[in-house]
């Protein structure tokens, strides 16, 4: 995304908007993570307590999802930068 076409007032406004959005995105990522790892790891409802096996699964699932997101984010940023440059070159 290219904000260089904006003036200072607009860029300041956008920074605030982005900051707020990041908080919302974080909260959504959190509840998405809970849902995802619950669905993947909890399949036995003969008890109401999390078994140690389920707990381990949830921890690994969380860990892996964050590492996955980070890697996707890194590749995404690279691809985005490439797309930007090839557009700018035209």
């Amino acid at each position, binding site marked *: 995304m290219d904000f260089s076409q904006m003036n200072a007032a607009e860029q300041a406004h956008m920074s605030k908007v982005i900051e707020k959005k*990041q*908080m919302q995105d974080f909260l959504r990522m959190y509840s998405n993570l*809970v*849902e995802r790892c*619950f669905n993947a790891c909890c399949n036995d409802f003969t008890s109401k307590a999390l078994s140690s096996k389920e707990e381990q699964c949830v921890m690994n699932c969380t860990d892996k999802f964050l590492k996955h997101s*980070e890697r996707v984010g*890194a590749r*995404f940023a690279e691809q985005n930068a490439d797309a930007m440059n090839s557009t700018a070159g035209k």
Partner: protein
Amino acid sequence: MSFLGRSGAPSGSVNPERVEMAMQELDMVTDVFNRLVSSCHAKCISPRYAEGDLSKGESVCIDRCVSKFFEVNKKVGEKLQSMGAGQSGTQSAFGSL
């Protein structure tokens, strides 16, 4: 859902920032509730729909499902806090902005 640990702030007229935070928390609670309803429906409710009442087995399953979901919510929250998250994962999408 006390994961966010907002510090109390006192008195006066409407503080937009405080209202904004409460609204974000409200949105989050609703979001979590909807996911909970959906997950426990998938785990506990038979998709045949031969009758409209919850069976005994379905009811018990729902109660346990909600308990486990809260435990998972707590574990994931602790894990994220221990990692000082809010920093990594999410922001990486904005690395190129």
